């Protein structure tokens, strides 16, 4: 029984190998196509790498799901009946079922990665890869790309960096593209709307008592300080005050008198 479980695991592994191989070939073709497009549009090659990564993962999953037991049977008609029978009698344990499992293990040795793989399809893919690689070299060598006047990737890149509607509103005022020239970028303005947490370092206020010096002795002599300190208003500066300030001063003085 464990042998047959091992056999089905092996079969799953074979399917994974084939799916991985085909998905790799597809991913290389996809990468080369996207690379050609990014070269023409003068976009970063990271775009091609990211898209290819996503394509590869989804392709492996899709191929694994697509390669069912029926597909394996279709590719190997000589094991079709025995494979189905083994699947239906997986948990049985008698003389003939054991013999069938042994027979199946023998037959499945011929069902390797090779029999599940379409060599013609793989050859076509390799040829496509060669053509696409050549086109990448040619496009790079001759610096073929769409002129900036026709297609400026930075103008499209700005689309991706546009702030959201929430970000574009500040104190109820909605920013337009033209406003940016006057007020600067709205996201900076938004910063003023946010709470700022300030942490004051308490170490600054610490007093190092070791460094405190003793007060110097000072001898005060009589007559050093004036007996009376008188404040004299600066008339000249008062005259320079704006009219509104003079009104305010007058108003304050009036209030002082009344109180």
């Amino acid at each position, binding site marked *: 029984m464990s042998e047959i479980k091992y056999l089905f695991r092996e079969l799953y592994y074979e399917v994974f190998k084939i799916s991985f191989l085909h998905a790799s070939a597809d991913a290389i073709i996809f990468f080369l196509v996207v690379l050609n497009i990014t070269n023409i549009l003068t976009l970063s090659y990271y775009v091609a790498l990211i898209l290819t990564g996503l394509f590869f993962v989804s392709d492996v999953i899709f191929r694994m799901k697509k390669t069912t037991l029926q597909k394996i049977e279709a590719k190997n008609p000589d094991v079709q009946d025995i494979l189905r029978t*083994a699947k239906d009698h997986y948990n049985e344990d*008698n003389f003939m079922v054991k*013999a*069938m499992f042994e027979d199946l293990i*023998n037959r499945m040795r011929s069902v390797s990665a090779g029999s599940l793989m379409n060599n013609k399809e793989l050859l076509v893919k390799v040829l496509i890869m060669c053509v696409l690689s050549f086109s990448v070299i040619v496009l790079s060598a001759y610096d073929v790309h769409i002129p900036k006047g026709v297609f400026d990737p930075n103008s499209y890149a700005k689309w991706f960096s546009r702030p959201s509607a929430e970000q574009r509103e500040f104190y109820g005022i909605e920013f337009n593209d033209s406003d940016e020239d006057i007020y600067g970028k709205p996201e900076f303005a938004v910063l003023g709307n946010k709470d700022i947490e300030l942490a004051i370092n308490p170490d600054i206020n610490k007093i190092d008592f070791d460094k405190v010096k003793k007060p110097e002795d000072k001898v005060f002599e009589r007559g050093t300080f004036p007996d009376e300190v008188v404040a004299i208003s600066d008339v000249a500066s008062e005259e320079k005050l704006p009219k509104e300030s003079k009104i305010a001063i007058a108003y304050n003085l009036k209030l002082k008198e009344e109180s």
Partner: protein
Amino acid sequence: MTQVHLQQVQNIKNMFNNFKTEISKVIVGQDKVIDQIVVAILCDANALLESYPGLGKTLMIKTLAELMDLKFSRIQSTPDLMPSDITGTYIIEEKRGGEKEFKFQPGPIFANIVLADEINRATPKTQAALLEAMQEKQVTVGNSTFKLDLPFFVLATQNPIDQEGTYPLPEAQTDRFLFKIKVDYPSEKDELEIVDKYTGPAKSIKARKFLSKDSLINLQGYCRQVPISDDIKKKVVSLVNRTRTNKELIEYGASPRASIGLILAAKAHALIHGRTFVSIEDVKTMAYPILRHRIVLSFKAEREGKTPDEVIEELLKKI
């Protein structure tokens, strides 16, 4: 990994190949017929052989019985054959003291392989007695019931010609035979070999014994263990069901007994050919002898001159 079980299945196949080689010393050609009889025996079922006279049916069955080390008996059916002639009867036996008592004298049915020659010549009453023994594997005489020795098979024969004074088996009774095997005329080459074999200097042709009773019973057990996929089972049931629904060609279709028989026969066919599982080819090969006596053709099919085998062939194309 050791392949003990698979090796044993291959040994079974080799044994049956040797069996056929041995039987071919006596019977020339008729490989298909021999295969079908062996399958019937492995399924622990009965078979009806239909052929013209002189094709070696009796010799074939007798040789099979000898090869299998089984007790063989022959019943020549005639209109005056009574049930007691088959089952046996009580006779009065006198003991030493002069005391008399009834003692059961077993009939020819008490054997492992019973050849009921020209069964359609026996009266329905005698046919019924035989068919009861076939079904129940026991006979009742008076108030006593006697179990038959296992394995037990009835291989009956009938001629398709010279129907005058015969009692053709009704459909319900032919259904009890798992197989209806048609024995055809041999090919010219085979016939030449038969002529050479049986017209030369007289010499006894002895066949070796191959199978003991116990090993045959074991093989019957293995036969039932042969795995079959659900997919093929569904196809078998669908085929048999189609014999009931295709009213255009078939008046009366096969019963579920045909489905059981077809799956069993396919298993046995796979086993004697050394396969560890049932394939659709086993089903297709066995469909003819299993279904041909279980279907009654419609008027339209008969008018078109179709035979049951042709109708089965049409049904098989759809599975």
